[in-house]
């Protein structure tokens, strides 16, 4: 009995000590990964001031690490493959589970939008079904106030069949993050002006980022990419033209808590991607294949409504 009492006393004191010291250890201690995760999470919360009071912008940038500015992308040539089979692979890690879909023919990948994206989005699977697609992943971002956005109000550019569905009225000098395909099936990722996209003959694409691999080089070499751990979606392309759709599940303790941007980059790199970029993640992350959602979207209500998807026709 006395022993139990002593152990209980020890645990209580330990917890008290832990509670009192943990803010100092986390924010000023030697554990960089914990510090980066906590600082990143607070900055994205409703109370970012707790961090901006404590650290200067330079210090925050240093803690979070970052992504190299994407260099000018060199477009590579490949012989277009016409293999119609899609290969699905499962990804397992101690922290996340996900799926990678290989699409040999890049010209099968198109952008599709929700039926009425000015009013509300549609789920990835609804967008795929409306367009008779075999496969689809969620694509571009949208204004998502308080995390309750309805998938309407996308931002940046949306291009389908060479036409600007969003950004038609923008000036040629307007620059946005962009992920899309040109006439030859090359995946483009990085910051592009509207004029550049027009001159490159871009056929399909949306606005999101950042680019993870450019010209075969990893863009994140320090830290986790600054976005913490969560459900993620990414797109990439090998030198033979094969397009890779990557979806990682997260926010589901016991199953998957999620991946960092650096995780995405490493998976894409190991799978031979020469160019790769991050797409909208979180509750939006969805991979649809052959009539069903393959992954497990993070939200309690299942798939989220989104404005745009990359589909495979």
């Amino acid at each position, binding site marked *: 009995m006395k022993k139990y009492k002593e152990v209980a006393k020890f645990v209580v004191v330990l917890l008290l000590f832990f509670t009192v010291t943990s803010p100092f250890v986390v924010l000023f201690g030697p554990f960089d990964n*914990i510090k*980066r995760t906590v600082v990143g999470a607070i900055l994205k919360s409703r109370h970012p001031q707790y961090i901006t009071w404590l650290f200067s912008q330079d210090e925050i940038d240093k803690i979070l690490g970052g992504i190299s500015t994407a260099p000018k992308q060199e477009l590579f040539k490949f012989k277009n493959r016409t293999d119609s089979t899609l290969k699905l*692979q499962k990804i397992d890690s101690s922290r996340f589970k996900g799926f990678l879909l290989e699409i040999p023919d890049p010209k099968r990948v198109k952008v599709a939008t929700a039926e009425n994206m000015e009013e509300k989005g549609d789920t990835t699977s609804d967008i795929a079904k409306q367009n008779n697609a075999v496969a689809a992943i969620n694509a571009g971002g949208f204004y998502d106030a308080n995390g309750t956005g309805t998938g309407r109000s996308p931002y940046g550019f949306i291009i389908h069949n060479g036409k600007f569905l969003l950004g038609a009225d923008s000036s040629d000098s307007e620059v946005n993050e962009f992920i899309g395909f040109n006439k030859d099936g090359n995946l483009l990722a990085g910051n592009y002006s509207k004029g550049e996209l027009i001159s490159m003959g871009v056929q399909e694409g949306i606005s999101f980022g950042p680019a993870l691999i450019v010209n075969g080089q990893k863009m994140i070499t320090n830290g986790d990419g600054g976005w913490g751990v969560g459900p993620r979606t990414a797109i990439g392309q090998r030198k033979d033209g094969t397009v890779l759709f990557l979806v990682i599940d997260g926010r589901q303790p016991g199953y998957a*808590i999620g991946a960092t941007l650096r995780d995405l980059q490493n998976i894409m790199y190991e799978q031979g991607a020469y160019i790769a970029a991050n797409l909208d993640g979180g509750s939006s992350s969805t991979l649809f294949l*052959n009539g069903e959602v393959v992954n497990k979207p993070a939200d309690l*209500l299942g798939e989220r409504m989104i404005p745009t998807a990359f589909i495979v026709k």
Partner: protein
Amino acid sequence: MKLGKVLLTFAIGIAIQLGVYFYLDRVLFAPTSDFQIGSTSQQEAAGFGAEPTGQSYYSFDKRFMATILEDQVNIYEAGKKGEPQHVSLHGRKVSFFEWLPDRDLAIFASYGKDSKTGRFGVYIAQYNPLYPDHELDTPIEDAPRDSKITDAAYSTATNVVYMKLEVGKDQYRIYRTDANYDTRRIRVQAENIGRIAVFYDQDIFFYDNLRTGVVYMFKGSDSSWRTISPSGKFRLIGIDGQEIFIAEMNKEDNVIAAYRGRLGVGFKKIATYSTPEEFSKITLNSMHEASDKADNTKK
């Protein structure tokens, strides 16, 4: 001797803390995680088994059927043989179950003591019969003992879920969760609450106060609220798109009239009941009929 013991305890405490920090830093929050890539086949669903017992609920496309006993949920798939899927409840009981209207996904609420820990808990959970191998749920952190969720209203466009938690006889609380699993109690202007509803595409929640007969709206984005029912005694019937249906009650708590309205526009009477109706008989479907009748009369 005593100093030695204190120092040893301190050293063990520091070692435990270092272990925790080390695990968090090097494993859980590491910038990258080792991964393996392997082939996969899309998952097979479980099959149809013994004759089901309990209350049955069908998914929107009738592909799945759930049978609910108090402490047991079985999921059957049409046309499949074999054992049904058994939803793990951890010894808790089911207090609410509903298939989503547009997808093979159910949300359900459970309450009671966990069979392993013995701790009382209230949970709202998702069940995906296509991928039944893991749970997705969120607890109501400060739920009083023996409380349970008896109703939920959700918006698939905004991903918010509002829950009605019964904490005693005619005593309810409202909780809200969203895509970030930010689950918290919402302070409302009622204790005895009737039906609840939420707009399909906006984080706007509706409820009524059964004691005073007032219907309210609550805006999740800024936590503002206001009364929406006209003067008199009213109950919320439900929401269809942007249209709100409420019922006017008499002193005996029976329905004497039904109204249709919109936020910022107001309510119009669409039906009068010369013989007062029981509220339980007034459904959204009956409101559709009443609306059509009222619209045709206008023409």
